[in-house]
């Protein structure tokens, strides 16, 4: 694209900073001097995608190589999309403003189901043929990674291959294979066959799903080279694996505009609804010394004034107090704030939060997930009401302005009594506001109740979502009850959005046609509630004669084949079944880092040796 065309675009769009690609620490290379051009695509707006750690890791890692140039793509906002169409311009990269179709490898991150239509939209705006079957020798290879790659079946016809597990472990091997394939100029299939031999690579066209009427009935392997199952890849040595230090610093305000320090990966709590808790096993930590060094380098190279400690549950980092003290010492007097997201709802976590926030004016967020102890036991959320109340009490005494409470609605076995318990819990927390003295009138409690979405590779993969009408009536119930409590504000996402998530979460390849249809009807950026259009989806399902309710509500038997059985997270199916049965008995499974290995089936787990009752 000429500089003039580009300027014309920048003049006309509302936020040109989204597309400039001239940020601090952006990697500049001469594209004609590299062998492989890699597009790293986040299927959402710049401000969302630039907050994502995985993208930054892969960008830094790939660009370390001289033979590769990795560039970024984000979903265009509505105004840019219109201009691209009107002017016949292809969706372009941020770094060199090159069309997507000119990239050898086009990698999407698969973070949420509602981004699927945006992915298809971006491929078509970028001039890449939508279906793998339509792609010719010179066309890009389209790949996907991230959590949803562990059940990417609804996307199967559009992707040449998927990467299961930790991408930084697999990407160098893909790039090597690509370089040698390009030199030999073999067929597309030859490259894919070669890739299929890399652990963690899933080439969907090498597997054919079988159906028995409506019922999914397993897959057939079409190539001898295609492994069954495909196993997730794991970075074993997180301490010494690549981690970026010169993060790109956005000009515009993005969702998380700060340094990210990944303190550990994985989580050993074993909440039964949580996909991340299963697919990112085992827990791997970085040392305090390593993290301090990384923090110093990142701040030096970015100039950010905030560091966020990233993990699935910050308070579970084994040396969290030492780390916080160490970072505070490192940045003393330099005006660098620390933030601790993903805190457990217990007094220890609040104690940590108080440590990093000298002025405690802000709020804290807790996720009890369920209102009653019985239901918390069902989902294995290891937190008691006593702990929640103690944490809330401390929060109000120490001067917090608000508490956010995250719950999930429609969890397996949930009854009206559980919802009443939720209301009573909020009432008890509200009553604690008086501890804050005069300030109590301005204290807010924000209650948010999302709808349970059953996820593959969790014990609840065999559970249907609660029927939409019932979801709405429970939302209504909570709305009415919570309205009566002083200082409480209640928010909930649209039931229709959660319904669609459930449809695609446990979906199979028959849903691909629906995605294409929805894009044709105009679906885009549906993860933004203001753009979500359920009527459009109803039309797309009807048009393709696919019943979405089948997917959201099916309840397979424990030994039925599931559409993602050929993809392995490393956790044994037997273990998930056991956890499922324990859930129905409201029986908890302890944290394997505290109480010893629970036998989840993971091979080469470094934690298996952990003795019982060793304090963390």
């Amino acid at each position: 694209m000429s500089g003039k065309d580009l300027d014309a675009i920048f003049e006309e769009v509302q936020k040109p900073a989204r597309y400039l690609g001239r940020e601090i620490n952006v990697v500049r290379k001469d594209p004609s001097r590299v062998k492989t051009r890699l597009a790293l695509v986040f299927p959402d707006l710049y401000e969302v995608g630039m907050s994502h750690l995985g993208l930054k890791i892969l960008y830094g890692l790939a660009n370390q190589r001289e033979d590769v140039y990795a560039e970024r793509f984000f979903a265009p906002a509505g105004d840019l999309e219109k201009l691209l169409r009107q002017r016949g311009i292809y969706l372009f990269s941020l770094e060199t403003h090159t069309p997507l179709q000119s990239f050898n490898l086009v990698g999407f991150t698969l973070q949420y189901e509602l981004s699927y239509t945006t992915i298809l939209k971006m491929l078509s705006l970028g001039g890449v043929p939508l279906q793998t079957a339509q792609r010719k020798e010179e066309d890009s290879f389209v790949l996907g990674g991230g959590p949803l790659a562990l059940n990417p079946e609804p996307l199967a016809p559009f992707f040449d291959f998927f990467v299961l597990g930790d991408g930084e472990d697999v990407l160098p091997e893909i790039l090597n294979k690509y370089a040698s394939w390009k030199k030999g100029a073999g067929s597309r299939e030859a490259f894919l066959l070669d890739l299929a031999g890399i652990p963690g690579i899933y080439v969907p066209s090498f597997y054919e799903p079988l159906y028995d009427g409506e019922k999914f009935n397993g897959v057939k392997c079409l190539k001898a080279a295609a492994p069954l199952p495909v196993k997730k890849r794991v970075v074993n040595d997180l301490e010494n694996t690549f981690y970026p230090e010169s993060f790109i610093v956005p000009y515009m305000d993005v969702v998380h505009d700060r340094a990210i320090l990944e303190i550990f990966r994985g989580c050993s709590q074993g909440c039964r609804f949580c996909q991340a808790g299963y697919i990112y096993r085992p827990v791997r930590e970085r040392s305090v010394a390593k993290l301090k060094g990384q923090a110093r380098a990142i701040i030096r190279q970015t100039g950010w004034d905030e560091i966020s400690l990233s993990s699935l549950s910050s308070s579970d980092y084994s040396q969290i107090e030492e780390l916080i003290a160490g970072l505070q010492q490192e940045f003393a007097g330099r005006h660098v704030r620390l933030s601790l997201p993903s805190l457990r709802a217990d007094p220890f976590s609040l104690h940590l939060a108080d440590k990093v926030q000298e002025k405690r004016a802000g709020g804290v967020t807790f996720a009890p997930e369920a209102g009653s102890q019985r239901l918390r036991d069902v989902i294995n959320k290891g937190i008691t009401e006593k702990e929640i109340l103690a944490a809330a009490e401390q929060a109000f005494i120490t001067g917090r302005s608000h508490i956010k409470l995250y719950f999930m609605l429609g969890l397996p076995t949930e009854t009206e009594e559980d919802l009443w318990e939720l209301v009573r819990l909020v009432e008890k927390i509200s009553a604690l506001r008086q501890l804050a003295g005069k300030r109590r009138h301005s204290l807010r409690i924000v209650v948010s109740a999302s709808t349970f979405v059953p996820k593959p590779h969790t014990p609840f993969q065999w559970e249907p979502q609660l029927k939409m009408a019932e979801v709405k009536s429970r939302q209504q119930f909570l709305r009415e009850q919570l309205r009566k409590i002083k200082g409480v504000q209640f928010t909930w996402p649209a039931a229709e959005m959660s319904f669609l998530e459930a449809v695609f979460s446990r979906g199979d390849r028959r849903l691909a046609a629906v995605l294409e249809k929805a894009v044709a009807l105009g679906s885009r950026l549906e993860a933004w509630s203001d753009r979500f259009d359920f009527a459009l989806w109803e039309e797309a399902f009807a048009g393709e004669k696919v019943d979405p309710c089948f997917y959201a509500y099916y309840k397979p038997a424990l030994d039925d084949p599931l559409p993602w059985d050929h993809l392995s997270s490393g956790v044994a199916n037997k273990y998930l079944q056991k956890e499922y049965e324990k859930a129905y008995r409201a029986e908890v499974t302890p944290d394997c880092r505290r109480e010893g290995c629970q036998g989840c089936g993971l091979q080469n787990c470094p934690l298996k040796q952990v003795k019982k009752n060793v304090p963390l």
Partner: protein
Amino acid sequence: MYPYRLCFCKEGALRYISHLDLQRTFGRALRRTDIPVAYSRGFNPQPRLRFALPLALGVEGKNEYLDLDLSAPLQENIIKETLNAQLPAGLRVKNVSAVESSQPSLSSLVQAALYVVDLSVCPADLSRGLNSLLQAQELFVERRGKKGTRKIDIRPFIHRLEIRKQEKGEALLMLLAAGSRGSARPQEVLALLPARGFKDKIYRADLFVFRAGELETPGGVSVERYVEVFYGKENCD
């Protein structure tokens, strides 16, 4: 506290970052250096930076100003060079000078700004349009604000409008009142003129303050002399 006044330009792709983005960019660039920046007090301490006058998105600035407080004195050229090493292409500090700490900051002093539109060809009806604007007693434009649309007379805020020869072709100069005492925006004036296609070629050449009854740049060049000598030679690169 040791205040310094920085003159910088904002050009090229960087004209598409907002004023807020610009503030963040300077704050972070400073943090990547060892310059002893003074911070504000309070819950969320920020580097003490005061920009003279926000620049609209998409408009280049050839001579923009900001006042920066340091907690210890530092040589001007060291500030300039250290900071320039950290600024992205398109942002560049041109000059740094220490100012008296008793001096009010520039943002409270700026009274006018000179906008320039490069004209590759000068449409004949443009000069006629200029004359009729200058002869008008009042010029009402609609301005959207927080409380809905208001009509305001921008005629008193147009100090000067003229076409000048420059190295390449001609230029339309607009000296417009700026700051808190009332202002006219360049786009408002252009909208009243009978020519199109200005949008991508506009830039702000400099800012002016009143000293002894006369408008001059913060560096002390009178507006008369400024226009005569012409900013064109003072370009960034």
